[in-house]
Each structure stands twice: as structure tokens, then as C-alpha cells.
């Protein structure tokens, strides 16, 4: 397991630095080609977004100079931007990849975009073949961890922008927004943004009232809505379930007595007032009326803040989950390291068995099928009994940092191939990999037997 991560992100570098590192999508294949052609680098992928440019790589021999790649690829001089670059190795690198995919490393923790961006970068690298075995396994695991974090914590469920909080509140009041009508008082940008969100969630009719009728008409046209002359504001306001106000009026436009009239006209059906004007357009006393809910910009901001706080709390839980997953990943990788030894041990003994059988077959004469089966069972049984302890020892040794010693001892004892165990083969890797490995092992084994 030789993973490396190097890069810059919103935590380590300001945007002026990050943009120097950015690699546009069109140039990604070329960059990946250069990366994997470097000494010692077996696999690699690059995630380049506005908040981060990160290189994930795996090396064969445990050494890889990603700094060198950065210098050469971007043409930086030595030491340039060095303070902005972070680097992780081995388990730290695994943890970092898990955290990035789970959106724990994001600027807005829990946002869902980053997972898509990592998936895209992974798909590009995979298509080019620069991710093909252990890094592939790492990323597949990272996506599973991200999914788990999303499903088992509430990290991504709450809204963290003013407009989405407005929608969330409206849904808390009205249930589905489909068929609901929205009245925009004032034709400002914020109004437009909030209206867009509400429409995306099903709001149907849009009314626009503005002191300058032409601007109201222009905005209404955008939403296929209806512009209403400002002097008819109080007669028409009860038509809407949601009123978003953002005029530049120096004092409140909607006062308590208006609210009472609206409620009467609407047979007390609830109304939701969103006041995003400063100074405020809506008298807070309106909120005291049964069935009227008033939220001003600070109230919305407060909800946003509390949601961010909730996300932070959930992030702590998510971090624990990530740590646990890193531990599991490490364990699996270590087990994977002893698997080749076990395989060649089994292979070796099986070959011995076959050779011995062939040798005595002449003396046994012709056997009935029953006798044939008995001989098979006998010889196999002896081998399995003898193999049981070494294999269990190998498997338990995998969880031990000393595992390589045990592996070496077993290899020496049974006179297996002298070279070090090949890199673990992940279960997700293409099927030809294990086949190739067995093929490579067989000739040497037969040679040993002939001797």
C-alpha cells in the first residue's frame, strides 16, 4: 500500500495560488500521461476543481516524487509555492481521499458537488488506464464511504443558503409548494433568486409588484408571471401564499392591520412573509397574527447558521466513521499482501502431490473409480491437515506489522520463489491479473520439483 496525495486546496492556498495549479479538463489526459510516466509512479489521478487541485498516486517501491512532477509540469522553480502545498502518504493519504469524497474537507462541509467531481476525475483516469488496480480499489472504497456518511449522518440534509432555507420553511408551512403562488414586492436580485428556488420546488403563479411598473413587468416576464400596479398591492397581496419583499422603502409596507385584512380575505389560510429588505418592509408585529409567519434576513441567516452548526456536529460523527473505514481498508490491504504467499504455497503442495501420485501410479496398477477417489481424498487430506496451521498463521500475521517476517519465513521454509511477494491484487481488478500471476509462479515451481 503505497499511496501518495499532493496538492493545494482552499485550506492551504488562496485562490491566486490555486488558479496557478488548475488543470482544465481538456489538458487532463496529457497531465495524467506525464504523471504516470514518472519514475516509480504506477497509478495516478488528478482532481482539479475551483477549491482544490490534488494528485492521487500510487508507487511500486514506496517512493514517488510528486513535487518533481508539479515543478516539471507547471514549470515552477524549486521552492516556489512550496508553503501552499500539502502532502500525505500511506494511511494519511487514504484518510484524505476518504475525507475529500465524503465532503468533510469541503469549504461547505457536506456539500454534494465534490463527490461528483472526484467521480468525474476517477472516470477520466480510469478510461485512460492510469487508475487500474490499487488506486482503483481505494477510490471505489472512498465512494462507498462517502455514500455511507451521507446515509448515516445528516451532514447533507440541511439547507445552508438563504434561498434554500426560504424554500425549506415554505415547505414546512405548506407541505408541497406545487400550486402555491408567490408575490414579489420589489424587483431586486435577491427576490429573483428566491423566486427561482421556489419555482424549482413547484411554486406556480408569480405576481410582481414594483414602484416602477416597467421593472415589475420585465421581471414578471422572466417567470411567466403577472405584473401588478403598485397601488393595487394591498388588494392583491392576499392572492399569494408566499410574499417576498425587498423594496427600498424607508418604513414598513406591511403592517399588522394589513395582515388582519389579508387573513380575513384568505379565510385564515396561512401566509409566509419573507422580508429581505433593509430597512425592513414588514412590521414584525405581523408575526403575532395566527397564520402569518414572518422571516426577515437575520432570521433566515440564523437558520443557515444553526444548520451549519448541525453539520459541524454531524461532521464529528462522520470523521469517526472515516477513521474506522481507514482502519478496515488497512486491514484488508494487509490481508491482500499475504494472499499471494498462501496461493503459491497451496500451488506448490498441490504440484508435489500430483508428482508423487504420478510416480507411484505404475506400482498401484489400475484402480477402480472408488479406489481412485480414495487415493485422491487421502493425499488431499494429508496436505490440508499440514497446511492448516501455516495458513492460519499467515492470515493472522497479516494484521500484525511484523507480517513480512512471517511471510519470508514461510517462503524460505517451503522454498517458494525467492523474490518478494508481488503487490496485492485487488478483487476489483481485471481477471487477467491473478491468472498472469499464477502462470508466472508455475514454471519456477515445476522447476523446483524436477530438481
Amino acid at each position, binding site marked *: 500500500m503505497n499511496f501518495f496525495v499532493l496538492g493545494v486546496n482552499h485550506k492551504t492556498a488562496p485562490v491566486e495560488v490555486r488558479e496557478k495549479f488548475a488543470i482544465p479538463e481538456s489538458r487532463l489526459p496529457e497531465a495524467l500521461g506525464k504523471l504516470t510516466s514518472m519514475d516509480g509512479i504506477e497509478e495516478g489521478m488528478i482532481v482539479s476543481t475551483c477549491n482544490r487541485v490534488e494528485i492521487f498516486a500510487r508507487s511500486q517501491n514506496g517512493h514517488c516524487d510528486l513535487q518533481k512532477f508539479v515543478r516539471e509540469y507547471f514549470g515552477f522553480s524549486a521552492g516556489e509555492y512550496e508553503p501552499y502545498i500539502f502532502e500525505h502518504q500511506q494511511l494519511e493519504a487514504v484518510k484524505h481521499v476518504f475525507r475529500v469524497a465524503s465532503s468533510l474537507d469541503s469549504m461547505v462541509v457536506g456539500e454534494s458537488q465534490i463527490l461528483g467531481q472526484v467521480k468525474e476525475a476517477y472516470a477520466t483516469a480510469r478510461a485512460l488506464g492510469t487508475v487500474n488496480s490499487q488506486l482503483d480499489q481505494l477510490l471505489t472504497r472512498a465512494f462507498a464511504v462517502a455514500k455511507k456518511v451521507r446515509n448515516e449522518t445528516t451532514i447533507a440534509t440541511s439547507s445552508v443558503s438563504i434561498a434554500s432555507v426560504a424554500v425549506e*420553511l415554505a*415547505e*414546512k*408551512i*405548506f*407541505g*408541497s409548494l406545487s400550486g402555491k403562488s408567490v408575490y414579489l414586492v420589489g424587483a431586486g436580485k435577491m427576490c429573483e433568486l428566491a423566486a427561482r428556488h421556489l419555482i424549482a420546488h413547484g411554486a406556480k403563479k408569480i405576481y410582481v409588484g414594483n414602484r416602477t411598473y416597467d421593472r415589475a413587468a420585465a421581471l414578471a416576464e422572466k417567470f411567466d408571471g403577472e405584473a401588478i400596479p403598485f397601488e393595487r398591492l394591498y388588494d392583491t397581496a392576499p392572492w399569494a401564499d408566499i410574499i417576498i419583499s425587498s423594496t427600498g422603502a424607508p418604513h414598513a409596507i406591511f403592517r399588522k392591520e394589513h395582515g388582519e385584512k389579508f387573513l380575513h380575505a*384568505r*379565510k*385564515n*389560510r*396561512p401566509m409566509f412573509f419573507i422580508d429581505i429588505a433593509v430597512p425592513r418592509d414588514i412590521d414584525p408585529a405581523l*408575526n*403575532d397574527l*395566527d*397564520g402569518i*409567519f414572518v*422571516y426577515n434576513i437575520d*432570521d433566515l441567516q*440564523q*437558520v443557515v447558521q*444553526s444548520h451549519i452548526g448541525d453539520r459541524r456536529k454531524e461532521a464529528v460523527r462522520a470523521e469517526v466513521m472515516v477513521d474506522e473505514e481507514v482502519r478496515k481498508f488497512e486491514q484488508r490491504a494487509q490481508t491482500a499482501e499475504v494472499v499471494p504467499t498462501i496461493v503459491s504455497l497451496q500451488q506448490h503442495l498441490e504440484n508435489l502431490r500430483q508428482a508423487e501420485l504420478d510416480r507411484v501410479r505404475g506400482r498401484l496398477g489400475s484402480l477402480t473409480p472408488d479406489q481412485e477417489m480414495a487415493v485422491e481424498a487421502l493425499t488431499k487430506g494429508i496436505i490440508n491437515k499440514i497446511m492448516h496451521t501455516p495458513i492460519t498463521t499467515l492470515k493472522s500475521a497479516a494484521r500484525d506489522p511484523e507480517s513480512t517476517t512471517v511471510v519470508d519465513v514461510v517462503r524460505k521454509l517451503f522454498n517458494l520463489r525467492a523474490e518478494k511477494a508481488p503487490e496485492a491484487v485487488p478483487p476489483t481488478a481485471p481477471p487477467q491479473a491473478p491468472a498472469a500471476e499464477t502462470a508466472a509462479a508455475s514454471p519456477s515451481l515445476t522447476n523446483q520439483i524436477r530438481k
Partner: protein
Amino acid sequence: MPLLWLRVATVLYGVGLVHAILMLRQKGERSGRIAAPAVGLGMIFHFVSLVETALLFGYTELLTIRHAESALALLIALIFTALFVRYRTASPAALIFPLIFILTFASAIAQHPMAFSSPTFRSGWIVFHVGTLLFGYAMLFLSFVSSVLYLILSRQLKRKQTPTWAARMPALQEIDELGYKALLLGFPFMTVGLLAGAVVAQERYGATYFTDPKVLLSLLMWGIYLVLLYTRWSAGWRGRRAAYLASFGFVVSVCAWGANYLSKLHRFVAP
């Protein structure tokens, strides 16, 4: 003869009752065209019946328990007509029609109790009475719970802090609709159940049943049920006022239930 006229009037008022229920379900436009003349005609028969009773038995007879209900019903009907003529508003009909129907019905059966042909028939009648009322109770309870939930959730929204448990609750308007639908569905059952009970009680105890605490509480509960529906339908009462009214209705229904232990006539025993 006066009893026959009263029965005819009861049937005609029954048309008004059906109209009132349809009206609460926002489907009352067509039935209104039949209900208004039916109730008008019912009032004429009702009036004739009362006059005849007075002529036959003297005016004091009208003040006995049997006829007082009937007289009260006609009075209410007249007041409604006056309001209608003066203000041209028919919406109180939703409240008035069920009221005059149930009063005349009680009076009509009081004057000539129905006789059950067999004990089985009688116990079947009681099972029906209990079953429909239980359903009515359940719906009333559901609407009470939803109006309390509505109140809590709207307070949370007004205070601008939603605790996590509130996030899992349905939306305000969904709770509101649930409560209203429970009322709408439960009301016909409650009405029919009370009428069935009245028939049984008449048969066994005669007109005195009307003064029993259980019966009075049940009628009060039914009245609150009606008022709840009416205020919700005509003025869209929700939130605080509706919750208070529903809570009151709930307390009365609990009392009506509890009155089983006080009432001499009505107990949870096998018939």
C-alpha cells in the same frame, strides 16, 4: 295528526342536514337548490304541527319536554330565515340545519317511541349506535390531536427555531387538512350514532332520557363538533382558536364518556 306533520317536517329538515354536510365538503351548490325549499316546507309543516298540538292539548303542552325541543327548533329556523332575509347570507345554514334536524328528530320520536319487534333487533340497533359513535369519537380525537400539533408547530415556526423532532413532522397545512378531514368524516357518524341512541333511549325510558347528564353532555359534544366544523369552514379557524375549541370539545367528550359511570340510564353493560 300533529305527529305526522312533525315527522314530515323532520324528513324535510333531514334534506337540510345532508345539504349542510355537503356544503362543508365544498360540494353544496347543487344540493342547496333542493335544501332551501325543503327546509322552508318543513317549517310550514312544523308550524302546523305545533299549532295543532296547542289547539288539541292547550298552550302549556308546548312547554313540556316533548314539545319544547320541537318549538326551539322552529324558533331557530325562524331566526335563521330572518337573518337570511335581512343579510342575504346562507352560510349559517351549515350550522343551523343539523341543529333543527336533531331537535325535531328528538321531539318526533319522543312523542311516539319506536317499538322494537325483537330483542335481537334492539341489540343490533345498540351495536350500531356504539359502533358509529366510537368512530365519531376517534375522529374527534384525531382532529383534536392535529389541532394541538398545528399549534405547536406554528409556535415553533414563529419562534424561528425548529428543533430536530419538528423537522420530522408533516407540514403545517398537511396537519390542518388531516384535522379537517377527520372532522368531516366523523361528524356524520357522530350524528347518526346519537340519533340511533336517542331511538333506543326513547323506547326504554321515554322523554325523561333527555335530562340525563350523559345525554346532555353528548349533545353538547355534538354541538361543539358542529361549531368546530362550521368555524373552520366559514371563517377558516385554525391555530390557536381552533385548538382551544377542539380542546374544549375533547374535554366534553371525555366527560361524556366518563358520564357512563354517573348516568342511571346509560352504562357499559350488555343490553
